[in-house]
């Protein structure tokens, strides 16, 4: 239970929490790689001597070299610079999906956990939503909404919301019965205030852990959608579209598809390492063994 207290911890508790988090090697490695990717995405394009979309037919399909560290693509564009620019969008999509799924999932979970009448319908809805494999449901939603970055975010947000809703509902059911909630009610605190101040605040750690995993899944799913050509427009650089584009040159210039894939692996693996570390620390009962 130590875990669920972090949200309401005093400052010293928080630094204690950070210290024990940073004592875990996998977490430090994960955070370092994520920071590196973030820095590359933010500042890479500014530091690069090449423009991400500048065409140069003279330097088409050049393998990695001192001039072009990760080679060039079929339009002669620098792969490293494009990787950085694409990283911005891939990270942005991942993060936005987390936000959207948090808003939907937490609201549904809180309502279901708090109001008995809503519990069964919402729980069944969650079950039904989770029966759809994530990629397939996302494909169908994007097909209905139309392909664009915003719609991909909306679709994936809807797809991952049930995961959060399920966790929030289960924890709310427990917290609702705790003495301090009863005490707050007896003191005349309003229901919305109890839900936000007393229940939600104690749910922040499981939400944080799950958000890390959703971030990772969303990045994989976005890449999959882009690769299939049913996500963002192929002209928008994301790691997924870069792989799709490099696929045509697989036997001549495999670096075009290799490095974006490696970037996805690094980002997703780091997020999983951080998420695992957080989970171990925040909820000892749910340690790695599960």
């Amino acid at each position, binding site marked *: 239970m130590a875990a669920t207290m972090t949200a309401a911890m005093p400052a010293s508790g928080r630094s204690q929490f950070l210290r024990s988090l940073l004592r875990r090697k996998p977490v430090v490695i994960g955070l370092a790689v994520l920071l590196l990717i973030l820095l590359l995405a933010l500042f890479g394009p500014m530091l690069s001597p090449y423009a991400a979309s500048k065409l140069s037919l003279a330097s088409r399909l050049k393998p990695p070299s001192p001039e072009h560290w990760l080679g060039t693509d079929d339009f002669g564009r620098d792969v490293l610079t494009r990787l950085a620019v694409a990283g911005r969008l891939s990270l942005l999509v991942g993060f936005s999906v987390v936000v959207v799924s948090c808003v939907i999932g937490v609201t549904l979970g809180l309502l279901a956990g708090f109001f008995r009448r809503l519990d069964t319908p919402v729980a*069944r*809805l969650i*079950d*039904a*939503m989770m*029966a*759809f*494999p*994530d*990629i*397939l*449901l996302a*494909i*169908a*939603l*994007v*097909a*209905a*909404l*139309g392909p664009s970055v915003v719609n991909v975010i909306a679709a994936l947000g809807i797809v991952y919301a049930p995961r959060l809703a399920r966790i929030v509902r289960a924890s709310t059911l427990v917290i609702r019965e705790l003495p301090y909630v009863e005490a707050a009610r007896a003191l005349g605190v309003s229901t919305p205030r109890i839900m936000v101040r007393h229940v939600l605040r104690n749910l922040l750690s499981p939400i944080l852990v799950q958000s890390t995993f959703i971030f*990772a899944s969303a990045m*994989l799913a976005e*890449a*999959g959608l882009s*690769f*299939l*050509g*049913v996500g963002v427009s192929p002209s928008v650089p994301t790691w*997924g579209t870069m*792989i799709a584009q490099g*696929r045509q040159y*697989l*036997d001549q210039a*495999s670096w075009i*598809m*290799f490095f974006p*894939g490696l970037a*996805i*692996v690094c980002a*997703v*693996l780091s997020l*999983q*390492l951080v998420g*695992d570390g957080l989970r171990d620390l925040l909820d000892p009962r749910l340690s*790695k*063994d*599960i």
Partner: protein
Amino acid sequence: MIRTISHRLLGMLVVMLLVVTIVFVIVRITPGDPAAVMLGPDATSADIAALRTQLGLDRPLLVQYFQYLADVVRGDFGQSIFLGQPVLRALADRAEPTFFLTLFSLGIAVAIALPIGIYSAYRRGSAFDQSATTVAMLAASIPSFWLGLLMIQFFAVKLGWFPTSGYGGPGASFATRLGHLVLPAFALGIVSSALIIRFTRASMLDVLNDDYVRTARSKGMGEARVILRHALKNAMIPILTIIGLTAALLISGAVVTETVFSLPGVGNLVVNAVLRRDYPVIQGALLVVAGLYVLINFLIDMLYILVDPRVRY
């Protein structure tokens, strides 16, 4: 027991009903007229009106919903707009590569995951255990389509051991067709093994400290026998659950993998349907896959009740 089963059955039916409802709603959230979107910008208004009538879009929403529900219950999943054949027929025609791809990758995932998971639990905390956990996490971080492309490049293009893509063309022998599934099955199987490794390890850890394992050891029974006969047997239920769920997940993994390897399966059908806005096909595929998932879940629940007398919830 009958009560438990009928209770579960009812729950499953409710979830199925919701699944159908979600599939119905998805097409209705299309901005504008779905019929116009499906036919594209060149369609005449007469064409659009005809399709609206064919799909029943000109009727009130509730009527459409109950009509759709009735059709699905009768096994009528509609007509593919582009292929001009019933959706179920189109799905059935392309089921073979998807079925075998799913089956093989599940086999590969289990063959990789079970020994690693069991040994990791047995040697908990060892270097093997730690590296297995890391490798499992790595496997779960690899996009299957990217792994597929790397495998095509290495095993098919460089070494020439396997065909690069396709399903052997029309009239290819069964063996040739299956040969085309080796690389895709490995790409998908490796990525999917991660979840099974973690669950096998966790569920073995749960039983390894149990009394009957200690008793078996104290009787002087060999380690291999203790682990495989006594511990594994009891750890198997959660492992079977996750294998079942992985099977359902693999069907969707197949969507992406089939595209990488140009396999003419259900995944390919769905991707093409999305590109052509052939909504009935997308809806049909969603229904079949989600239906299978719910069904597998239900069967696993039943298995629990049959196998484990303690489960009588």
